[in-house]
């Protein structure tokens, strides 16, 4: 079933979940996201998400259980189990206020880092599947090779990808040590709940699992390395993570030996998607996308750090 097929049913479902007693109401629906990997609809205080068609039901149930178990870190679902709707798995969430896309300078970097540090210190549930970060990076590269391999910016990105260790390309399992990870951190993954004055929480458990915790720091790290995120913002994020006892990087030494591979992988992922999207829209790359591809180009001159761990 495609995302367009599930949307009307999802709208009806979220209305029913928001108002179990009422036959009709005047609240408008809002489609918060409509992508291949998920459709999200809000009605009043309730949000329903139709997960990607290939979502594993057992894995989603385990990931949902993690969100339920750690409501001080992750937004807790309204219902403990996924529901089925037109062949798709549906989960229900309270609505939270997202980060304002028009004011990313007000983004809660410290809170995000503190939440990640807390998450990385929690014991993963038995049977929890791997964090899906490397799988997503591999999918982005597959999309590049499948749709835009002839783009002039593709070779440095593919070269940087091939230089990464196999675990970062999702070809072999991630090596120890591992931790409970979010798997896809960016500013769209934070909401404030309750809406007015509530605490920041992480959302979107689809990629959550057991993995290399540096991966969760690697997107901000990549933005910083590409020259996009100001050094003071990166320092604030990293400081907050270390102050909160985050285990991914050493407390008082250069974090880059540990961050290097993950930050390279996220840079490659971002560059691959940028080229694929620019090609699909038949537009040139913008300067920000160009900065990410330039970083991939520079990677060829410096081999990746061998360490995915640091001495304890």
């Amino acid at each position, binding site marked *: 079933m495609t995302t367009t097929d599930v949307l009307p049913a999802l709208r009806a479902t979220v209305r029913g979940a928001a108002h179990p007693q009422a036959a009709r109401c005047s609240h408008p629906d809002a489609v918060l996201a409509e992508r291949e*990997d998920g459709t999200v609809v809000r009605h009043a205080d309730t949000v329903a998400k139709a997960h990607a068609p290939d979502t594993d039901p057992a894995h989603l149930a385990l990931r949902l259980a993690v969100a339920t178990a750690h409501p001080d870190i992750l937004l807790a679902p309204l219902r403990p189990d996924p529901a089925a709707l037109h062949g798709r798995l549906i989960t229900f969430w309270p609505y939270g206020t997202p*980060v304002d*896309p*028009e004011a*990313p*300078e007000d*983004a809660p970097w410290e809170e995000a880092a503190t939440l990640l540090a807390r998450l990385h210190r929690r014991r993963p549930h038995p049977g929890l599947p791997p964090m899906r970060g490397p799988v*997503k990076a591999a999918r982005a590269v597959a999309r590049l090779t499948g749709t835009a391999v002839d783009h002039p910016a593709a070779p440095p990105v593919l070269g940087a990808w091939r230089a990464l260790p196999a675990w970062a390309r999702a070809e072999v399992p991630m090596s120890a040590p591992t931790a409970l990870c979010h798997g*896809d951190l*960016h*500013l*769209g993954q934070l909401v404030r709940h309750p809406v007015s004055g509530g605490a920041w929480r992480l959302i979107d458990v689809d990629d959550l699992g057991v993995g290399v915790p540096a991966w969760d720091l690697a997107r901000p790290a990549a*933005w*910083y*390395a*590409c*020259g*996009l*995120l*100001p*050094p003071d*913002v*990166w*320092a604030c994020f*990293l*400081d907050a993570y270390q102050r909160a006892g985050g285990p991914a990087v050493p407390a*008082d*030494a*250069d*974090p*880059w*030996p540990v*961050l*290097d591979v993950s*930050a*390279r992988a996220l840079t490659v992922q*971002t560059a691959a*998607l940028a080229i694929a999207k620019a090609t699909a829209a038949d537009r040139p790359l*913008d*300067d*920000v*996308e160009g*900065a990410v591809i*330039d*970083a991939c180009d*520079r*990677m060829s*001159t*410096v081999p990746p750090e061998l*360490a995915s761990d640091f001495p304890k």
Partner: protein
Amino acid sequence: MHMQCPKCHASMHTYNRNGVQIEQCSGCRGIFLDYGELEALTRLESQWGGPAVPPPPAAPQYPAGGHHSAPAWGAPHGGHHGGHHGGHHNRGFGHMLFSS
């Protein structure tokens, strides 16, 4: 100050060569020179009549610590362009901040 090799992370040991302090890695045997040390060695060498070594390019180094350190493949120092709030790349980067 104890240094770690930026290449292989083994510890580096300090040697004194003709009055110039040189850090050499105990693992890969790579050598780290502080600013001006290569020139000092070159001067010494030319005093002894050997051929002069050309001055090195200003290569970036991993700083030994601190949060402003960056990977060797990172954007050139001072070249970050878009993170400044209100910068002309802000829109594209703003979008990137929110997408998978």
